[in-house]
């Protein structure tokens, strides 16, 4: 045991301390009792909401299920009739009753067949439609939530929600209705029969209910926590799995395999423990219900026996009562199985409801304001903008900045000065804590997302290529662009030659996050994409860092054209990029410390001048 604890401590040391205390769960996954209760309510509301459009189909499925069961019940009855009423006439030489009964039997069998087939198909349709809708909603919500949310939530957890959690719900969908409806129905029927057979004895069986209630309440509480635990631990397994496979080159180059394995074993083990707990709770709950049933059989046997001895009850009634009592508890076990998958699905639904409940910190405006149209636009203004990723550490405080339309502004300064933050604020990845940022006089918060994205494009050093062809990736900038426009954009940026030389030219598939293209090539594709998008405001955040000199020169030349008619914020430590700027801002500690055209700053002998000298020296 101590070995385990040491292992856990070592693991904690490896993982390090998270700066965000909520790093291991989203805000919506708050573990406080109120939050849990709220999510439980929300998850049920979500389920109702998902099922609402299928009410009719659901009714149809239940009807088919009832028909199937009626037909199945009719079978043994018809057999009985066949024996009782068919054999006599047959002996007398009259096959008609038997034939008629056999026909009826065949009809019942066929109805059962058709109804069962219909029910299974229909219920699967409902289930699959619900899953589809759920997947789309959750995925859509993930797309909608701002970058700030994702930085906290992490990609692995997002993957986990949309795979493992949805799978858990799918398990309920497979055969859930079947169990629920049939079991409830037969329980009610049998309860009626029991009451009709002997009310006092039926009254005694009511004693079981407090027990069943207590058992179920215990299970509800214990399993809700346990299933929640499985959802959280499986997410950690997925997070670690995805992260280490993404960085497999570093893993191998640094022989990290063994430690990774230990971490994986630890999270895998946590998940195993958590699932084991749920399995064991189920292993106690269902037989627990059976035990209650069996106890009731013994009680009824004793009490009923006494009643028979007292002459208050016929022996046959007791026998029938006992037989039916078993039939009463059997579906209850089925229901307990259903309840088990239900609890598992609910835990997953809670997580999904939590994501769906998450409010975007960068909401769409209720009434979007359109941007003024026509040429010559793209003026940016920061008015006393303050912002921090964490409340205690402001990155920008009271920033004032006006960028007139068409100006190219270079932002330079040391790491952590707030340059990228300014870029992200203009792209509205985050909203300022105080103050406003406006584009052509319109507060960014009042712009519709589609309009904002048409007007402002941010290119970073993270040049993600989506799976698909090179052409598709360039067209990402403007989906309605034709092939000629795509090629023209690539030509303009100097990417055409290398793309044309690829095995399938523009149709070459860039697999696995652009695995086969070099970093520089990916950057060129990203540039072509931005070029094609043709926004009012272009923000380049270290967008040329992986380019070699000739490519950078090409991009530079293209930029001269690209930037002529639009506003641009350029963040680069390569001052060659800065040279095309109309204006240079030196940023430090979230404030602008120098501001002016490059030539004037060079002669002013300030920080820019010093950096520029250093850069000149670094050239040949």
């Amino acid at each position, binding site marked *: 045991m101590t070995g385990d604890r040491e292992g856990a401590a070592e693991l904690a040391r*490896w993982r390090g301390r998270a700066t965000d205390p909520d790093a*291991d769960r989203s805000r919506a996954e708050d573990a406080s009792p109120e939050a849990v209760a709220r999510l439980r309510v929300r998850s049920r509301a979500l389920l109702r909401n998902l099922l609402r459009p299928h009410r009719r189909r659901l009714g149809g499925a239940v009807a088919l299920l009832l028909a199937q069961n009626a037909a199945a019940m009719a079978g043994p009855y018809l057999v009985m009739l066949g024996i009782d009423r068919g054999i006599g006439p047959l002996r007398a030489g009259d096959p008609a009753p038997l034939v008629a009964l056999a026909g009826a039997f065949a009809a019942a069998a066929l109805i059962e067949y058709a109804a069962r087939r219909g029910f299974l198909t229909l219920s699967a349709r409902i289930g699959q439609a619900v899953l589809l809708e759920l997947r789309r909603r959750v995925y859509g919500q993930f797309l909608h939530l701002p970058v700030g949310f994702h930085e906290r939530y992490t990609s692995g957890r997002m993957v986990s929600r949309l795979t493992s959690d949805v799978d858990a719900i799918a398990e309920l969908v497979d055969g859930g209705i079947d169990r629920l409806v049939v079991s409830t129905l037969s329980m009610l029927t049998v309860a009626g029969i029991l009451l009709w057979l002997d009310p006092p004895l039926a009254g005694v069986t009511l004693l079981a209910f407090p027990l069943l209630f207590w058992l179920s309440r215990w299970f509800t509480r214990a399993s809700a926590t346990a299933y929640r635990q499985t959802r959280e631990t499986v997410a950690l397994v997925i997070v670690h799995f995805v992260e280490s496979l993404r960085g497999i080159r570093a893993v191998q180059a640094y022989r990290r395999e063994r430690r990774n394995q230990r971490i994986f074993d630890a999270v895998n083990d946590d998940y195993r423990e958590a699932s084991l707990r749920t399995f064991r709770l189920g292993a106690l709950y269902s*037989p627990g219900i059976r035990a209650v049933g069996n106890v009731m*059989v013994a009680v009824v046997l004793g009490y009923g026996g006494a009643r028979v001895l007292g002459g208050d009850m016929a022996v046959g009634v007791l026998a029938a009562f006992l037989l039916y009592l078993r039939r009463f508890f059997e579906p209850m076990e089925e229901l307990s199985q259903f309840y088990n998958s239900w609890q598992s699905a609910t835990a997953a639904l809670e997580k999904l409801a939590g994501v769906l409940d998450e409010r975007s910190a960068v909401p769409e405006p209720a009434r979007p304001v359109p941007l003024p149209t026509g040429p010559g636009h793209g003026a940016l203004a920061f008015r006393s903008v303050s912002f921090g*990723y964490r409340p205690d550490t402001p990155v920008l405080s009271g920033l004032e900045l006006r960028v007139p339309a068409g100006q190219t502004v270079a932002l330079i*300064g040391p790491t952590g000065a707030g340059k990228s933050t300014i870029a992200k604020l203009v792209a509205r990845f985050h909203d300022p804590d105080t103050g406003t940022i406006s584009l052509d006089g319109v507060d960014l918060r009042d712009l519709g997302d589609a309009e904002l994205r048409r007007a402002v494009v941010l290119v970073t050093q993270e040049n993600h290529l989506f799976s698909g062809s090179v052409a598709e990736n360039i067209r990402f900038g403007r989906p309605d662009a034709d092939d000629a426009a795509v090629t023209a954009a690539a030509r303009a940026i100097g990417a055409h030659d290398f793309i044309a030389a690829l095995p399938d030219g523009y149709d070459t598939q860039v697999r696995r996050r652009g695995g086969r293209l070099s970093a520089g090539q990916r950057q060129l594709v990203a540039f072509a994409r931005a070029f094609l998008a043709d926004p009012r405001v272009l923000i380049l955040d270290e967008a040329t860092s992986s380019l070699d000199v000739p490519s950078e020169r090409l991009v530079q030349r293209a930029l001269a054209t690209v930037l002529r008619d639009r506003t641009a914020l350029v963040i680069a430590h390569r001052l060659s990029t800065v040279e095309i700027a109309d204006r240079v801002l030196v940023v430090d500690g979230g404030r602008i410390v120098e501001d002016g055209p490059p030539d004037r700053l060079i002669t002013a002998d300030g920080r820019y001048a010093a950096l520029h000298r250093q850069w000149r020296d670094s050239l040949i």
Partner: protein
Amino acid sequence: MLAHRDGDLTPRRRPLRNLLRLRPYLRPYLPRYCWLLAAALAATGASLAVPLLTQRVVDGPIADRDPAGVLRLGGLALLLGLAEAALIVVRRWTQSSASVGMEAAIRADVYAHLQRLPAAFHDRWQTGQLLSRITSDLSAIRRFLSFNLLFLVLNLVTYAAVVVLLVRLHPALGLLVAASAVPLVLISRRFARTYHAASRRMQEQQGEVATLVEETAVGLRTMKAYGRGPQLAARFATGAGTLHDIGVGKARLLARTSALFDLVPNLTLGVVLVTGATAVANGALTVGQLVAFVSLQLMLIWPVQSLGWIIANGQEAATAADRIHEVLDTLPAIVDAPHAVELSRTTVRGRLAFEAVSFRYPGSPEPVLRQIDLTVEPGETLALVGATGSGKSTLLSLVPRLHEVTDGRITLDGHDVRDVRLGSLRRLVGVAFEEPTLFSMSVRENLTLGRPDAGEEEVRAALALARADFAYELPWGLATRVGEQGLTLSGGQRQRLALARAVLGHPALLVLDDPLSALDVHTEAQVEAALRRVLRDTTALLVVHRPSTVALADRVALLDEGRIVATGSHSELLATVPAYRAVLSAAAETPAVPPPRLGEPDGAGLVRS
């Protein structure tokens, strides 16, 4: 090595065999499974005893008017009932630890195997496809092993037992019932085949959807920057829609077969009824026998009915096993040779030589590197220069054997790197990639990835060299978690940490891919100066894009379309090789100056030059 490509959806159709191949994982639990079976049988026995007991109560004490007897037998029923429940608890308890434990063991093995598989494998396989194997596929196997297998055995036993009883009761009718197994087998076989294909498609598509999600998660910022949410949502909707359609199609197959499994025993029952009634009418059978026969036959309906689900789950498990073995059967292409030697840091001088090295990515017709001959002398620093996509990064990745040469050989101090123990080779080589990868770990852990034994001083020295002292200023110092689940660092900060990681503990050979690209000029100059001291006595291979970084190198090699076209000192090449000048010299052409603009609004009141 068995070649698997992504998009290769043709399974090797041996799913059942692959399911059986998972036996070793079951082995540790075999004694438990024996207990489990015993508990299951005992529980069934107990549950059968209760109705018998009831009959005894009715026939015995009640008929004899013996209250004590009623109580005694009632008490016995209570005990049996509780025993039954307890036995079920034992069975399920045992079963759960076995199935969950097995699932975890397979998952750990798949993960271990994936870590051994080389970069080339991971280039081809999408993470989502691998992920769906360790999640959905393993659940399918667990479901099958924990419930279906047991029921399959119990149901087959029930079926055989009932048929034997029926044949003994009335041979002709009994054989008729036995013959009804023939259509059942035919239906099962066809169903198994079609359902296998469907569940394979389903599982593949689940992987596709997982891949889409994973890709979106990684490319989220790009998606946001272009506002392409609707486009991605449409793409996802298509993927999820396909999953929906396959799901519905699969359910249809199951619905048809499952309903047939209902119909066949019912129809058999009908035939038995008519034949039996005729036999009774003829006096060949008593009514009592017919009733017994029919009620026995009714016991068959449930086992047959459940067969559909069992086959379906079995197929899913088999497909899942197939998919898992697809990964496990891919042998790691880059492993220790049997006679591989261990090189120690103290004896290695660091002479690196490429001898006629060629490299081609698997599945691509064109080689990336052709006939590379290159030697880096001990202590020498060689810079690789070349246009974007000329193969520089690929060349670097061959040194620590992340990829394996297709032709020729790479030697370190005369040892072919393929004859050096992988662990020892990778310990000798310090690498920094063009994209600095940081894991969600503490800064210290990220730095000491390959050298968990590194001391405090070594770490401090490496951080100082890479100008990454900022790490001490982080909220929890070196214990701060960085990476995706931790603190977000800037590109320059990440690159400096990656550099510190590479130089930590003085590797014999440094392999750095454009290590200073994301640094600002000021920091770059500082790092360069510090790096220069290290490179004085370390063999190094650098990929370089900037004239400033070239200054670190003693010698430069120009790579063009996978060939070394020139080597020499920077100034030599600059003077004599025009291609080199074109690639590296910023002075060859001054940065384009934008043409002057006229008549633009100038709100900030700046004077333009």
